[in-house]
C-alpha cells in the first residue's frame, strides 16, 4: 500500500513555515528591545536583583514548566531538549543584550558577573514566544493538538476537511476533528459509564465531565446514569484501536469517476479520462482511512481539496488551488459511501444486539392485514373453506373469499364472466362447481400470471381471482377495502373503451379513479388477458400502476394490445361543435400536458358538454366521440363507487377524462404528453371544477 504523497517533514514542521508565528516572535523581540532601551535610558540597571543561583535556576524551571504544560504529555527527552533550548536562547539573548548595552554604557562592560548569567528580565518574557513557531518541532502535532476528549463528547467531522493537508504521517491534521465540542446537556449531570459506539448514530451526550485520559472514541451515544457499565463492544474496540493507532498508512481508494462530477468542468485541461489516467494512482484518489473513519457515522464523508490536491498533475489543472476551492462547495468533495464502507474493516460493522424493547415484539400488528377482530377477519373465520377451483387467496390476504365471488344473479351487459379457471397448481381445478368426481382434474400447469400478482402483494393487501370469459382472461386483484363489484364494473367500462373505434392507440393502461378508490387495468397482450387491480386511493397507487406496467413488460407481453373477441361497437352520433370562447383561457391552466388547443363539443344524445384540450392536429370529433362514450359508460355502470375519472395511458401520452358537475353534465378531457402526471390530474380536476361552477 503506497503512502500518501505528503512527506512527513511537511506536516511535522508546519508551524515553522507559519509566517504568523514568526511575526509574533518578531513583535515580541521588538517589544523586548524597546523595553530594554527604556530600562537603560531610565538608568534602571539590568543587573539582577536576585541571588545568582536564582538567575541560574528560575528561567529553566519556568521554561520547563511551560513546555510541560503546553505539550503535555511529552516524552522526557523531548521535554529536556526543549527546556534546554529555551534556556540557551535565554542566555544568548541576555548576553547579547548586555553586550549591546555595554557598547552604549561603559559601566556595564566593566561590571563583573553581569554578562553571565545575564539578568533574567526582560528576556524571560520573550523567550517563551519561541514555542509558537517551534511547537511542531518540540512535539509531534498530535501531542499538542489532540487534546484529550472529554467523556461523552462528540467529534465534529465537518472540521476535518477545512484544516491543513492531511497525510497518513500527519496525525495533527487527523487529530483536529477529534477536538471535542461542547455537548448538549441532556439533564444527566453526572458522567455516565463508558459511552458506547453507535454505528451510524452520533448523538448528543450527557453534561460535560472533567477531562479524563484520552479516549479515541468519536462516536458516542448517551448512556443513562443508572445503566451499569458495559463492556466495550466489538465495534467500539475496533474503532478505538483504529483511531488510536499511530500508524497512519491505511488508505482508501476512491475511483475518480465516482467523484469527477463534483469538480467544475473547466477546472481541467483535457478530458476527465486523461486526468484520471494521470493521477498519482491512476484512476483513483487516495484518502487516509482515518479521515473517513471519523466521519462515517455522520453518513457523509467529505475531504478538502488540500487532501487530494497534490495527486492531480498540475499541468492538467486549469486553475490554482484557491480557484478550485472556490468552485467546490465548501472547498470539499463528497466521497461515495459505498466505496468508503467497502474498504473499511469488516469488524467495524459487526452487528450487536440492540436495546431491549419496552414491549413484546409479537404485539406489533401486521400493518398489511386488517386488525384482529375486524369484520373481515371474523367473517373469514366463520366462512367455509373457499372452493379451490374458483379463487386463490394469497398468503397476504385474509379477506373473505365469498365477498369477491361474482354474483351470478347480477346482470352483466358488457362482458359475460364464465366459470373461473384454476390457476393454483396446488389446488387442481374441478369442473362443475368444484364437485368432486364430476370431471377428471386437468393437468397442473403453473400460471405465470400469478407471479405478476404475487409481486404486487407487498404494496397493498390484495386478493387474487382469476376469471375466464370467451376470448378474455381476467386476473383480478382487489383490496379487501374496496367494494367487491368495483373491479367487475370497471372492467366493463374499460372493455367499452378498448373496443371503441376512436380509442387512442396504443393503450398500455387504463386507470379509473373515484374519490376513495381506483381500479388499474393493464392489458397483458393477445391471449394473455387483462390484469385488474382495485385498491383504495393511497400512496401506493402510483406504484401499483408502475408495477403492473413493468410486470406486463417483463413478461414479454406486447403492451397496448387488447383482447380480440368482442365487437367493436357502433360509431357515435355526430357531435355538435360549440363556439364558446369562455374556455379558451383554460388551456393555459393545463401546462402540465403541453401546448393544447381547447375545443367545446356537445353530445346530441344527452346534451352533455365536452370540453376537450387536444394537441394541434388532433381529430377533435374522434376524440369527442370517444370521450362522450366513455363518460356515458362511466355514468351507466353500476357499482362504480363514484368513479369519475378515466386515465388512458399509451407510451408517454395520457388521456385524462373527468366528469364535471352533478350527474356528469359536462366532461373535461385532456390529451398529451406529460412528465408531470400528478400535476396534469390536478389541473384537469381544477378545470372540471371551473366548468361546473
Amino acid at each position: 500500500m503506497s503512502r500518501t504523497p505528503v512527506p512527513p517533514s511537511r506536516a511535522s514542521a508546519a508551524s515553522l513555515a507559519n509566517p504568523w508565528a514568526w511575526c509574533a516572535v518578531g513583535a515580541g523581540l521588538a517589544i523586548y528591545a524597546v523595553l530594554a532601551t527604556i530600562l537603560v535610558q531610565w538608568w534602571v540597571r539590568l543587573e539582577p536583583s536576585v541571588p545568582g543561583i536564582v538567575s541560574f535556576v528560575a528561567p529553566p524551571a519556568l521554561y520547563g514548566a511551560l513546555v510541560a504544560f503546553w505539550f503535555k504529555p511529552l516524552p522526557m527527552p523531548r521535554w529536556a531538549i526543549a527546556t534546554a533550548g529555551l534556556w540557551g536562547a535565554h542566555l544568548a539573548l541576555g548576553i547579547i543584550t548586555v553586550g549591546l548595552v555595554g557598547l552604549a554604557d561603559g559601566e556595564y562592560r566593566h561590571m563583573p558577573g553581569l554578562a553571565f548569567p545575564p539578568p533574567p528580565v526582560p528576556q524571560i518574557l520573550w523567550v517563551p514566544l519561541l514555542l509558537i513557531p517551534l511547537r511542531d518541532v518540540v512535539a509531534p502535532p498530535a501531542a499538542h493538538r489532540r487534546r484529550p476528549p472529554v467523556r461523552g463528547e462528540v467529534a465534529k467531522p465537518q472540521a476535518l476537511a477545512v484544516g491543513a493537508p492531511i497525510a497518513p504521517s500527519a496525525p495533527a491534521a487527523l487529530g483536529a476533528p477529534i477536538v471535542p465540542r461542547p455537548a448538549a446537556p441532556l439533564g444527566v449531570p453526572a458522567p455516565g459509564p463508558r459511552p458506547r459506539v453507535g454505528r451510524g448514530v452520533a448523538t448528543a451526550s450527557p453534561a460535560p465531565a472533567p477531562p479524563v485520559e484520552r479516549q479515541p472514541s468519536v462516536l458516542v451515544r448517551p448512556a443513562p446514569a443508572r445503566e451499569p457499565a458495559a463492556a466495550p463492544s466489538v465495534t467500539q474496540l475496533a474503532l478505538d484501536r483504529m483511531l488510536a493507532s499511530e500508524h497512519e498508512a491505511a488508505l482508501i481508494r476512491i475511483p475518480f469517476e465516482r467523484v469527477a462530477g463534483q469538480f467544475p468542468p473547466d477546472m481541467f485541461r483535457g478530458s476527465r479520462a486523461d486526468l484520471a489516467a494521470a493521477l498519482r494512482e491512476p484512476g483513483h484518489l487516495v484518502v487516509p482511512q482515518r479521515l473517513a473513519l471519523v466521519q462515517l457515522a455522520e453518513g457523509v464523508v467529505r475531504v478538502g481539496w488540500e487532501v487530494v490536491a497534490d495527486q492531480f498533475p498540475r499541468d492538467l489543472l486549469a486553475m490554482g488551488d484557491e480557484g478550485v476551492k472556490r468552485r467546490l462547495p465548501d472547498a470539499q468533495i463528497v466521497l461515495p459511501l459505498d466505496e468508503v464502507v467497502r474498504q473499511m474493516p469488516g469488524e467495524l460493522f459487526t452487528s450487536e444486539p440492540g436495546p431491549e424493547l419496552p414491549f413484546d415484539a409479537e404485539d406489533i400488528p401486521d400493518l398489511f392485514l386488517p386488525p384482529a377482530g375486524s369484520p373481515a377477519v371474523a367473517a373469514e373465520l366463520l366462512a367455509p373453506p373457499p372452493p379451490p377451483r374458483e379463487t386463490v387467496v394469497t398468503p397476504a390476504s385474509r379477506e373473505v373469499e365469498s365477498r369477491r365471488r361474482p354474483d351470478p344473479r347480477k346482470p352483466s351487459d358488457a362482458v359475460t364472466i364464465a366459470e373461473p379457471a384454476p390457476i393454483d397448481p396446488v389446488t387442481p381445478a374441478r369442473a362443475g362447481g368444484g364437485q368432486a368426481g364430476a370431471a377428471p382434474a386437468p393437468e397442473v400447469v403453473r400460471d405465470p400470471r400469478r407471479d405478476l400478482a404475487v409481486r404486487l402483494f407487498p404494496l397493498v393487501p390484495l386478493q387474487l381471482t382469476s376469471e375466464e370469459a370467451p376470448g378474455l382472461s381476467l386476473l383480478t386483484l382487489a383490496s379487501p377495502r374496496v367494494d367487491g363489484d368495483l373491479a367487475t364494473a370497471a372492467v366493463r367500462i374499460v372493455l367499452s373503451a378498448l373496443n371503441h373505434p376512436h380509442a387512442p392507440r396504443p393503450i398500455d393502461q387504463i386507470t379509473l379513479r373515484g374519490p376513495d378508490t381506483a381500479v388499474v387495468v393493464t392489458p397483458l397482450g393477445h391471449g394473455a388477458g387483462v390484469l385488474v387491480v382495485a385498491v383504495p386511493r393511497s400512496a401506493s397507487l402510483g406504484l401499483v400502476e408502475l408495477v403492473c406496467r413493468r410486470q406486463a413488460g417483463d413478461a414479454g407481453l406486447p403492451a397496448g394490445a387488447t383482447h380480440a373477441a368482442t365487437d367493436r361497437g357502433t360509431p357515435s352520433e355526430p357531435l355538435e361543435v360549440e363556439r364558446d370562447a369562455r374556455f379558451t383561457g383554460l388551456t393555459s391552466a393545463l401546462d402540465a400536458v403541453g401546448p393544447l388547443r381547447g375545443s367545446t363539443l356537445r353530445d346530441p344524445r344527452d346534451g352533455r358538454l365536452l370540453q376537450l384540450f387536444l394537441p394541434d392536429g388532433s381529430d377533435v370529433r374522434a376524440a369527442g366521440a370517444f370521450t362522450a362514450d366513455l363518460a356515458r359508460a362511466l355514468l351507466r355502470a353500476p357499482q362504480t363507487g363514484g368513479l369519475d375519472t378515466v386515465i388512458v395511458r399509451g407510451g408517454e401520452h395520457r388521456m385524462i377524462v373527468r366528469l364535471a358537475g352533478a350527474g356528469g353534465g359536462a366532461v373535461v378531457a385532456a390529451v398529451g404528453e406529460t412528465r408531470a402526471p400528478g400535476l396534469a390530474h390536478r389541473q384537469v380536476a381544477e378545470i372540471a371544477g371551473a366548468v361546473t361552477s
Partner: protein
Amino acid sequence: MTDGLAPVPLGSTAPEEVHRCLGRLAALPGVALAALVDAEGFVLASVGTPPGDPAGPAAVSSWLVEALDATRELLGLGALRAVLLEHGDGAMMVNPLRSGGLLALVGSDPGALGEARRRIDEALPILGRGL
C-alpha cells in the same frame, strides 16, 4: 357556468418558483433528479434527467414514506423528516412535506444526497406551499 373562467392556481407558490427551487437542488453535484411528488406517488414537477423513468422514484418514494410513517406512528417516534434509500444503481432521498406531498431527490450515491440535505431546508417551505 360563469363567464369568468380562469386558471386556478394550485398553490401559493408560483410554478416558476417551484421549478427554480427544484432546479437548484438538481444542480447540486451528484443529484440527477429533484421531483415534487403528490400523495399518491405521481410527479407534480421535476427537474433533472434521471437514468430511468421519473415515475419510478416518485411512486417508490410515496409508498415508502407511507409505509415508514405507519411504522413510525406505531412506535411513537417523532415526525418523519427524511428517508434515504440506497440501492445498487444509486440512491434516493425523500422528504415529506407538511402539505402531504414529497420532495424526492435521486442521485448517484448517498453521499451526494447527504450533501444536498443541507440545502433542502430552505427549499421545503417553498415546495410545500407549491402543493
